[in-house]
């Protein structure tokens, strides 16, 4: 149970490659923070620096107010779950979980209590005498978590713990990690490349790219107000649509003109633009697929042609192309369409689409920053 503070943390490898640039972050006590980003963004490196498995080139890391730069991993009060589980193959499940306790000379009966309790929580009691290779992926994952649980650590580190599991098991384990968090009630730092995991698990999400932090915020913040094009594209699935267009400021009112169709900016977004006194300029307009809808007759609408129709069950993903060959994705709830409408939607079908003024995102094409942040 502790806060973790990273100040100006940098990782430079021997070959002068900078893996992490000036990383500043304050993680509060009992917070669940998720580092997310594509592979090679430096998220795992940062986690490993916190764990003490990687030297810190510059900056300081504090755990519970103490600078831990020069401490060995074992002296940092952390527990860690590895991506490939890293179970000791020659030890039984029981011995695996008991390993850290025995190293710190905990009496055997205490070891027994702690291990069996952890095993019970994780539902692996019946496998205690097995060797790791006799377990399935999900069971191994539980053992790895169990091994970290018994350490009573201040900070719980997880490095892509679910990425080796199949989709179904991953969903199940994700829910269990949320339960685990409630039971352990400690600080969590979780690394993943999967934005769904990040959104569902994190109190706060740190989105990284090429060693830089792109945005730090709650799931809602990063979803509703992405700081730049990268975050906007990374969070949310299917990916946000980006349209190169112009923002018009006419007599205090704002309009966008995607594909020559003039649509008004409305609500909060318009107020914010006005507050920032944004003038007419080129922008990248971002609209999430779920915010594009099929236009009703008479509405100003963008003309598109259907390329692919993906039936997902509860919703339909429509891949369409506009007159100048820009691809857009439209997400339509299945219930909104009648059977005839659905049957008509084959490749080449013409669709008119539009979107509301309050769901637009505006990015500067040069800096790719969100105009409103």
């Amino acid at each position, binding site marked *: 149970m502790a806060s973790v503070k990273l100040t100006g943390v940098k990782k430079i490898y021997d070959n002068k490659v900078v893996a992490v640039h000036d990383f500043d972050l304050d993680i509060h006590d009992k917070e669940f923070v998720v580092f997310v980003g594509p592979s090679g963004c430096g998220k795992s490196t940062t986690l490993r620096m916190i764990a003490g498995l990687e030297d810190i080139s510059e900056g300081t890391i504090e755990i519970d107010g103490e600078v831990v730069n020069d401490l*060995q*991993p074992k002296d940092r009060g*952390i527990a*860690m779950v*590895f991506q490939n589980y890293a*179970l*000791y193959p*020659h030890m039984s499940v029981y011995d695996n979980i008991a390993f*850290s306790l025995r*190293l710190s000379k905990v009496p055997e009966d205490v070891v027994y209590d702690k291990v069996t309790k952890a095993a019970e929580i994780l539902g692996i009691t019946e496998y205690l005498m097995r060797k790791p290779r006799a377990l399935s992926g999900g069971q191994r994952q539980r053992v790895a978590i169990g091994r970290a649980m018994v350490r009573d650590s201040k900070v719980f580190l997880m490095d892509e713990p679910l990425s080796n599991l199949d989709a179904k098991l991953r969903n199940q384990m994700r829910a269990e990690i949320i339960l685990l968090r409630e039971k352990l009630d400690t600080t969590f730092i979780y690394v993943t490349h999967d934005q769904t995991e990040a959104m569902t698990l994190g109190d706060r999400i740190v989105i990284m790219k090429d060693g830089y932090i792109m945005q730090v915020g709650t799931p809602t913040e990063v979803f509703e107000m992405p700081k730049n094009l990268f975050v906007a594209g990374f969070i949310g699935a299917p990916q946000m649509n980006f349209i190169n267009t112009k923002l018009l400021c006419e007599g205090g009112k704002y309009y966008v003109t995607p594909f020559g169709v003039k649509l008004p900016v409305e609500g909060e977004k318009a107020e914010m633009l006005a507050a920032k006194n944004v003038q007419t300029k080129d922008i990248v307009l971002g609209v999430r697929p779920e915010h594009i809808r099929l236009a009703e007759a008479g509405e100003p609408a963008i003309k598109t042609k259907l390329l692919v129709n993906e039936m997902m069950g509860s919703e339909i993903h429509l891949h369409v192309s506009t007159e100048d060959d820009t691809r857009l994705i439209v997400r339509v709830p299945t219930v909104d369409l009648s059977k005839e409408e659905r049957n008509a939607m084959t490749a080449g079908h013409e669709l008119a689409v539009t979107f509301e003024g309050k769901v637009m995102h505006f990015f500067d094409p040069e800096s790719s920053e969100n105009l409103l942040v």
Partner: protein
Amino acid sequence: MKNEKRHMGLKAANRLSNTAIYILLIVISVVWLLPFVFILLQSFRVESTWQVGYVIPQQWGFDNYIRLWNSDFKRWYLNTLIIALFSAVLVTVIQLCMSYTLSRFRFKMRGPLMRFMLILGMFPGMLTMIILYRVLADLGLTQANAVPGLILVGVASSGMGYYVSKGFFDTISKSLDEAARVDGATRLQVLYKIILPLAKPIVIYTILTAFMGPWGDFVFARYVAMGTSAGYNVAVGMYSWLTNDQINSWYTTFCAGGVMVALPVTILFLCLQKYYVEGVTGGAVKG
């Protein structure tokens, strides 16, 4: 119908090629084993002690073995055994220290060190023989005292042969080390609680090769012993039986000696074959 025909054809072709392979394998096995069978048979030949044009003795007996154990061979055998046992322990320790470190630790001098040893290895080892001999001579470890000298030299430079076991260590996932260190283990504890139990095949492989090496050690051993029979190992001693003026009276004794040397080593080897194979296939190529 046509399909069936082709199927049959495939089977027949397979059978043919398999038969060819069986014949090949039998021939290979015979060629590979015959010389050893010859040695064994000739070691029981009583009627003559020189090379003859037949293999199966006309008169069988243990004369050669009796003669063998009444010769200096006893001393040579003991010498070799002592060297082999010592190097099995010491060489293993040194090589494992070396290879484990180079596989697991990323310290500043690691790259330069490995490059340096690579370059050192390009010098023919024989070059150093002259000076090592002089140094051993100064320490009084030559001729009759060759055994400790050979152990010393053999063990001291064995760190250079770290490649095979490093290759094996490299195959053990590094996250095991990391997990153990997070779990509270020191590097020393990581080594003996996690890595060594997992490295059993390579430990046994190293012990086995370190033990087997001295049995065939020839050139340096000969140089160090310098004609003093008491300091010979089996290779040097038995070589002296096959020189042109000795071979006619010692040839069959050499065969008996060969059996005595090969037998224990081969039996040991066959028992531990599994580990040897694992070591070679797991580490040798990766280097």
